[in-house]
C-alpha cells in the first residue's frame, strides 16, 4: 500500500512541481505588474471566484459533461459502425473514406450556427457539435485498426475455409486487433468532445438550467468578469482531462495483454 502510494507520488511529482512553478510565476507577475483585475486576475482571485460561484460552475460542469458524453457515445457508435462497413472492401473504403476526411476539415465553429438554424438553440445542437468533432478520429482509427489484423493469420484461417470477411474472422481476429487503435481514437476524441460541447454552448448561447461552461465563458467575458472566465476555463480543462483519463484507464484495462506499452505491473 505504502509502496503503491510512493509510486503514485513519484509519477505525479514532476507534473505537480511544474504546476506549482506556473502558479507561482502567475502570482508573482500579477503582484509585480499589477494589471487591472479584469485584464488579468491573480490566482487567489480566481480561486475565490471559483468557490463563490461554485453553483454556476457545477451546473455548467454537469451540462457540458452531459453534452460531451452524449456526443462522444453517438460518435463512437456511428464511427465504429461506419468503420466496420468500410472495412468490408477496398472499394467501399475508396468510395467513402475521402469524404470522411473532408468531414475532419470542416471547422466545428463554422457548422455550429447551421445546427442552431436547423435544430434550434438547445442541447441537441451542442451535442451535435461534440458529435461532429469527435466522429473522424474514431472512424479513422477504428478503420486502421480493422485493417491492421495479422494478414498471415487471416490467410491461415482462410486455408481452413473461412473467408476474409467471415464472422469468425471479424469477431476473433479483426475486431480484437482493432481495439488498440480504437482506444487511441477514443482518447483523442474524449478531449475533443469537451471542446466541441463548449464551442457549441458558445454559439448556442443558452443560459439558465441549460447553461454549460461555454455559456459561462461568454457570459463572464461580456460582463468583464475575467476571474469567472478563468474559473470556467479551468473547470473545462479539468473536465477534459478527467474524461481523457477515464477513457485511457478503460483502454489500458481492456488492452492489458495487447502491447507492452499498455501493460502495467504484471509478471
Amino acid at each position, binding site marked *: 500500500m505504502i509502496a503503491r502510494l510512493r509510486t503514485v507520488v513519484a509519477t505525479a511529482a514532476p507534473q505537480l512541481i511544474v504546476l506549482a512553478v506556473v502558479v507561482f510565476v502567475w502570482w508573482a507577475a500579477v503582484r509585480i505588474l499589477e494589471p487591472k483585475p479584469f485584464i488579468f486576475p491573480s490566482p487567489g482571485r480566481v480561486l475565490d471566484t471559483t468557490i463563490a460561484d461554485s453553483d454556476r460552475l457545477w451546473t455548467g460542469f454537469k451540462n457540458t459533461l452531459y453534452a460531451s458524453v452524449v456526443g462522444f457515445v453517438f460518435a463512437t457508435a456511428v464511427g465504429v459502425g461506419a468503420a466496420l462497413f468500410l472495412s468490408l472492401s477496398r472499394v467501399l473504403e475508396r468510395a467513402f473514406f475521402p469524404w470522411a476526411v473532408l468531414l475532419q476539415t470542416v471547422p466545428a465553429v463554422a457548422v455550429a450556427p447551421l445546427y442552431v438554424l436547423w435544430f434550434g438553440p438547445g442541447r441537441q445542437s451542442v451535442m451535435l457539435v461534440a458529435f461532429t468533432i469527435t466522429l473522424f478520429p474514431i472512424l479513422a482509427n477504428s478503420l486502421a485498426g480493422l485493417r491492421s489484423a495479422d494478414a*498471415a493469420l487471416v490467410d491461415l484461417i482462410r486455408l481452413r475455409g473461412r473467408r476474409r470477411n467471415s464472422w469468425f474472422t471479424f469477431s476473433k481476429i479483426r475486431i480484437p486487433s482493432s481495439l488498440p487503435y480504437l482506444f487511441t481514437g477514443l482518447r483523442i476524441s474524449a478531449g475533443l468532445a469537451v471542446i466541441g460541447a463548449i464551442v457549441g454552448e458558445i454559439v448556442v448561447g443558452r443560459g439558465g438550467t441549460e447553461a454549460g461552461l461555454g455559456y459561462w465563458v461568454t457570459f463572464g467575458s461580456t460582463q468583464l468578469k475575467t476571474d469567472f472566465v478563468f474559473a470556467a476555463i479551468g473547470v473545462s480543462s479539468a473536465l477534459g482531462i478527467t474524461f481523457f483519463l477515464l477513457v485511457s484507464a478503460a483502454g489500458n484495462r481492456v488492452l492489458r495483454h495487447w*502491447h507492452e506499452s499498455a501493460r502495467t505491473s504484471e509478471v
Partner: protein
Amino acid sequence: MGEADAPGSETGGHVAPLDTTQAGVTVAIDGVSRRFRSGFLALTEVDLTIAAGELVAVVGPSGCGKSTLLKIIAGLLTPTGGVVDFGGSRPETGYVFQDAHLLPWRTAIRNVELFLEVDGVRKAERRDRARRALRLVGLADFETSYPAELSGGMKMRVSLARTFATDPELMLFDEPFAALDEITRNRLNNDLIRLQRDRGVTGVFVTHSIGEAVFLADRVAVMSPAPGRIVGVVDVPFGDDRRAELRTSPEFAAVARDVSEIMAAHEVAEGHEIMAAQQ
C-alpha cells in the same frame, strides 16, 4: 525467463503423435509456374515429387520464389501454369511462418485452440488437444502465459503446437526459425525433426540456411535465383538418425558442400545470363 527446456526432457523422449492413424500425403508438383500481375515471373516449370512422410527442404537465395511455391502448395495462390496434385482431395495442411503470428490477447493454450475453433471442434476436446499439443512442444507449464510473456523461441513453439493440434497430413514451413538466434534455432530444429519423424507427416521446409536444410531434410531441393526453378536435388543419407552431433560430422559437411556447390554454380550461371541479357 529463458528458453524452455527441450521437450524430450519433460515427456521422456519418444512422444506419440496426437493421432497415430495419421499418415503423410504425397505431393506432386508438376510444371508449376507463377507470373504476378506486375509481369514478374517468380517461378518457372517447378517439378518436384514429395513422397508420403518425406521431409524435403527447399533452399535458394532470397527472392527466388521459395515462399511463392509454398503458398501455391497451400492453395493460397493459384499457379499460372502447372498443377499440384495430392492424389486425392486437399490434405489437412499446417503452415508455419517465420513469425509466430499469435493473438496477443489470448493465452498460449487459447492460441493453440484457434484453428480447432475455426473447425468447430467442441470446447472440451479442443482444450484437450491443445493441452497435448503444448506438452508435445515442451510448453506444458506455460498454458496460461500470454505471448508477451514468452520468449521468441517459445512463441514459435506455441505456433508449432497450434499447427500440430490440427493433426496435419502436410506441413509447410516458411523459414520458421529465421528470426531466432542460432542456439534457439538449433534447439527448435532438434525438436522439430523429432516431432516430424515421429508423426510421419509429409513436410516442405523452405530456408536459406544450407545447414538447417541438411540437418532436417530427407532431400534438399536447390532453387535458382528468380525466376525460381529446381536446379538440383541432393539426397541426405542420414535416415532418422538426426542427433545434434550430426552437425559437426564430416559426412554432414560433405552433403552441405554438395548443396552449396549446386547453389554457387547457379548463382554464377544466372549472373552471366543476366549480364548477357543486359548487353
